[in-house]
């Protein structure tokens, strides 16, 4: 190709555009990774003309294989399930579980209607009270929560417990990381309390919360606090350990810089320690949230917090023919929400960290 080529500028422009497109796709790839849509990148690249055959292999690996695996799992489940007869009927296959998921959705809609009716009645009653000169009263809904409300309660509880855990674990971790004495002091306690199961913490937490919160009412119901505190106790360990590790493994040169500049502790922590330790802190947070979500379901079952754990327990107690399928719907929901929570943490992590080694 020479400059005598009449199409030179066009070709050059096209090449330049293509190069920019690839840059954009690469930039977007970062976001696709966060959202779990990594398979879009090779598709876009192939559409932009970048070595379609190699991209096809990528698409196969990132999209087709997972889909095939899920399909194979569903097939296996659908075939094996009816063979196992429990006293509640045959183990439900994917079809029944889907049916129950639809039922739960319809039930949630019916409950929404009931809620609206209840509110209308209360408004009527309040209007009458106002007309006769008395104070109107705001009434909480007295019926049962719908499935979506239970999911929301679980998410609220896990985040509350997780935030409590973060507030406790990060400062303690920084302390343990900066001071070898503190580390030596905290280490035995960490090692002993780390393996304790939430079900063992629960009776103790219940007794203490019941004693401290003498009256019913207040900002949060007791079962919410008990579940959240149990989540805290079990999920603060990954954050604590990872923070301590992150802080302790700051580059020696940076520590020397702080000494040379005669930084006070607050500046040292906010400008030096935290930014360097962030990758590991976020790893810890991500692990903590995962553990917390698992622990939450068990804690809710026993503390009777009106979330997914209670839903599973109640269905088990009911022993109706649709109970097993509903429990499976709950299991899948728990898994999906856990996955989404993990993705959220991963997104936060990639926002705050730039390289993996600092």
């Amino acid at each position, binding site marked *: 190709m020479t400059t005598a080529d009449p199409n030179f500028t066009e070709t050059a422009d096209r090449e330049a555009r293509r190069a920019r497109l690839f840059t954009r796709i690469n930039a977007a790839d970062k976001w696709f990774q966060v959202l779990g849509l990594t398979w879009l990148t090779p598709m876009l690249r192939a559409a932009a003309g970048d070595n379609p055959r190699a991209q096809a292999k990528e698409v196969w690996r990132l999209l087709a294989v997972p889909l095939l695996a899920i399909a194979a799992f569903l097939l296996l489940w659908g075939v094996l399930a009816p063979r196992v007869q429990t*006293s509640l009927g045959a183990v439900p296959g994917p079809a029944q579980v889907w049916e129950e998921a639809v039922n739960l959705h319809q039930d949630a809609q019916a409950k929404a209607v009931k809620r609206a009716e209840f509110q209308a*009645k209360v408004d009527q009653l309040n209007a*009458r009270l106002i007309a*006769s000169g008395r104070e109107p009263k705001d009434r909480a809904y*007295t019926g*049962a929560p719908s499935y979506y409300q239970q999911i929301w309660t679980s998410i609220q509880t896990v985040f509350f417990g997780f935030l409590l855990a973060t507030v406790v674990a990060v400062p303690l971790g920084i302390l343990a990381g900066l001071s070898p004495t503190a580390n030596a002091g905290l280490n035995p306690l960490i090692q002993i309390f780390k393996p304790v199961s939430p079900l063992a913490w629960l009776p103790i937490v219940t007794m203490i919360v019941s004693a401290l919160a003498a009256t019913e009412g207040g900002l949060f119901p007791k079962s919410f606090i008990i579940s959240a505190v149990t989540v805290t106790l079990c999920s603060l360990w990954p954050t604590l350990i990872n923070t301590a590790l992150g802080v302790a493994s700051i580059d020696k040169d940076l520590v020397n810089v702080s000494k040379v500049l005669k930084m006070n502790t607050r500046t040292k922590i906010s400008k030096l320690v935290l930014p360097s330790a962030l990758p590991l802190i976020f790893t810890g947070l991500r692990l903590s949230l995962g553990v917390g979500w698992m622990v939450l379901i068990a804690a809710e079952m026993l503390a*009777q917090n009106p979330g997914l754990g209670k839903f599973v327990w*109640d269905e088990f107690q009911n*022993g*109706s023919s649709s109970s097993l399928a509903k429990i499976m719907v709950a299991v899948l929901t728990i898994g999906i929400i856990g996955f989404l929570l993990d993705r959220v943490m991963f997104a936060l992590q990639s926002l705050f960290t730039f390289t993996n080694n600092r």
Partner: protein
Amino acid sequence: MRKFLLGLAATTALVSPAFAEMLDLEKDELTFGFIKLTDMAPLAVAYEQGYFFDEGLFVTLEAQANWKVLLDGVIDGKLDGAHMLAGQPLAATIGFGTEAHIITPFSMDLNGNGITVSNEVWEQMKPNIPADAEGKPIHPISAKALAPVVETYKNAGKPFNMGMVFPVSTHNYELRYWLAAGGLHPGYYSKDNISGQIGADVLLSVTPPPQMPATLEAGTIHGYCVGEPWNQQAVFKGIGVPVITDYELWKNNPEKVFGITAEFAEQYPNTTLAVTKALIRAAMWLDENENANRMDAVEMLSRPEYVGADAEVIAASMTGTFEYEKGDKREVPDFNVFFRYNASYPFYSDAVWYLTQMRRWGQIGEPKLDSWYDEVARDVYKPAIYLEAARMLVDEGLANEADFPWDSDGYKAPTPAADVIDGIAYDGKSPNAYLDSLPIGLKGDQVVVGTELKG
């Protein structure tokens, strides 16, 4: 009484057309507890049919994990009231278990329980049961048919375990009554040993009702006494066979009550009346027109927030049939009675029967005078509140005058011998004489010391 009249006078000015005579309520947001059993129906009906709302009450119904949690909830105020076993207010007031003064103004139902045994045990019992012309077992089946089975187990060195729901539950006493009527000893309680298994041929232990079919299936127990739907559930799942209902044991026996603390009734008298009124209306609705509304009640109860079991399992007993062996369905029209036969009136004689059974098995350690039984019954059962609520309903035109026993002295007529499985008549006014007439059990001055009877 004065406070009530003043309140009534004050609120007559505020009467509005859509609401029944609204009492001036001290507390209108209430939480009631229940256990997943068919006979919590009056609570569910009072909520769903709007009877609580008509009285101005905003009630949240919460299922409890087991009877102990429920009782503790009422005692420490977490629950304002609950669906309770008839024995619970009595035991709490006399101090067996956690002590608290609990009263009841409303009896929730009569009958409603059954005794189920596992398939294995049934196969071994069947040869001992006389059959009718068609080869079906003749009912009522006495525990005499179970005695040889228990012997076999004993000779093999295996314990024969049965389950009931709570140490002071109706089921415990009915199971013991049935076993004793067949010559089997269900065990004594003593001051130091409250397992209830002293000297027992059959070992009884506690399991929460919804977990009973699972425990039976697992083989931990060989039979249980529990309320519906857990007997029909066992048949439905093919894991057990009900052998007798408590209707056949003692026709129209008292079962559950609605319990509240004495403090609650004192502090909130109008609220107590309003709650009782709503519950009476619910009971009436359940038995209306020869049980015409039962199927609607079944649909309500099968919702996961109430009982949650399949509608067909609940429907059996609620609509008057009971399936014993698979395929052997019989008519038991009064299996669940909520209002007929004065089922909702809290009779003193019912309280006294439970107290006699507590004494019979040693939960009440010392012998007591007849007057003591009467006093405790009057302390716990409050028919005065019931009748006041009933009077208000009749005045509002929501109930019939003729349906309530206005002139009763609180004691039912003595139970005729024919209505009880072992033919022993019960007169609530002579509890000690009744105790003496029962074959197995503590009599007169007997006490259990260690593993021996003394006195």
